[in-house]
């Protein structure tokens, strides 16, 4: 069974068509990147898949559960790390993890075990008792992803996970995301070409709410007739408007 099957997903805001009849599927354990310029419909797609926003038309099945009809079951199997860091600034790193573990129903020893596991995986031990609001952007992003992972989601949605980070912090976060590949299905939005190319199994390029191409980075370069992924992206996105 595919982890995600999207069928004709559409979102309109008044006259604006944010996502236009999107159809695609994501295999279990795959990392799919949604790539596009601002306003391409990436974040709107993620919000619909996370049950944060209702589709105007179409549906998506996450391990067979509809984002329209089975929102409770869908929410139980997903986690979302929004574009903003979305941490509680007045709480320490440990307390932030306790909060998310608590709202997912983890208690006592199980909760402590989960937190220790995530702290080790994300390398958060040195900031564990520091308030989240006082951390650098890179640490906040790590915490944000750790918060998303604590519920052991089957599908993880990462919306612009490295936005605004310096080169080193970005590289460290890439390593963390790579370490998750295969264990959890990941849908990641980005507008960094190199990020999509380095991390993804497949890449979906979107423009004006529509899916232009969905394939591996190598195949996309081949389709566009160039060795540079950035050039391939530009050719594909511009090709539509020409």
């Amino acid at each position, binding site marked *: 069974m595919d982890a995600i099957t999207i069928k004709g997903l559409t979102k309109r805001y008044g006259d604006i068509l944010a996502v236009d009849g999107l159809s695609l599927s994501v295999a279990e354990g795959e990392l799919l990147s949604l790539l596009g310029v601002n306003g391409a419909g990436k974040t709107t797609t993620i*919000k619909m898949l996370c*049950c944060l926003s209702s589709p105007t038309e179409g549906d998506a099945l996450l391990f067979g559960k509809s984002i329209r009809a089975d929102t409770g079951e869908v929410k139980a199997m997903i986690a*979302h790390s929004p*574009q903003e860091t979305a941490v509680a600034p007045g709480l320490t790193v440990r307390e932030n993890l306790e*909060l*998310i573990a608590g*709202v997912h*129903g983890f208690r006592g020893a199980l909760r402590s075990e989960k937190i220790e596991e995530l702290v080790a995986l994300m390398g958060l031990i040195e900031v564990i008792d520091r308030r989240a609001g006082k951390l650098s952007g890179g640490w906040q992003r790590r915490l944000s992803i750790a918060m998303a992972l604590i*519920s052991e989601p089957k599908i993880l949605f990462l919306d612009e996970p490295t936005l605004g980070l310096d080169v080193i912090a970005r590289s460290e976060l890439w390593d963390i995301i790579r370490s998750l590949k295969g264990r959890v299905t990941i849908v990641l939005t980005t507008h960094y070409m190199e990020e999509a190319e380095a991390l993804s199994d497949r890449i979906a390029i979107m423009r004006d709410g529509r899916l232009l191409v969905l394939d591996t980075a190598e195949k996309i370069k081949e389709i566009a007739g160039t060795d540079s992924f950035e050039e391939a992206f530009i050719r594909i996105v511009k090709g539509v408007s020409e």
Partner: protein
Amino acid sequence: MKMLALAKRNTKEIIRDPLTILFGLGFPLVLLLLLTAIQANIPVPLFEIQKLTPGITVFGLSFMTLFSASLIAKDRGSALLERLYTTPLTPLDFILGYTLPILPFSVAQCIVCYLAALVLGLDFSLGIFLAILFLIPIALLFIALGLLFGSILTDKQVGGICGALLTNLTAWLSGVWFDLELVGGAFRSVAHALPFVHAVEMERAALAGELSVALPHLCWVLGYAALATALAVLFFLRQMRKN
């Protein structure tokens, strides 16, 4: 029980904000001390301790609107709420999770005011316990207003609307600082159509042990608390769906 995780977090955020302690507990206390000192030199019937203390406790609660609205507006701004919407928390969990932590803080504020008033000369009576009990629906009213404003305003707007406008409206229209009968006319009518003066009169009657006088005012307060809660739930759910 999942709601308690959210409530616990909100409690920590509130008590770790020094402004909350300053305005929540310190400011009403300073007002009480200052006006009692003025009263000692220039006696004004309105500022006698048994009339002043209930008024100050109600005025102090207007800051609870600021605290609850700020918390929600900040969580909306930082996308923490967006993250929490994708968890198994239900709408009721959110409402209770943001309301319950502020309730004990409201009661604590009231107790601190009455303890200070006892030191300043208020006679001890069972009416004090009654006044603290009657304070709960007033606290719910102000917290619900916070949920409402926090759901529709940004963090910055909350500071202006709840921090400045609402606290001033509560002050002017409650009869704490001046007798509304002295102004009369439309001002008096408007004040009596709103819950603030009823909250103060109810607290004064409760402190005096006059239950029959307090009950009609309680109906006003409960009515407005129910209305504010219904609107808060409506707007909270609306922004949840809009996300």
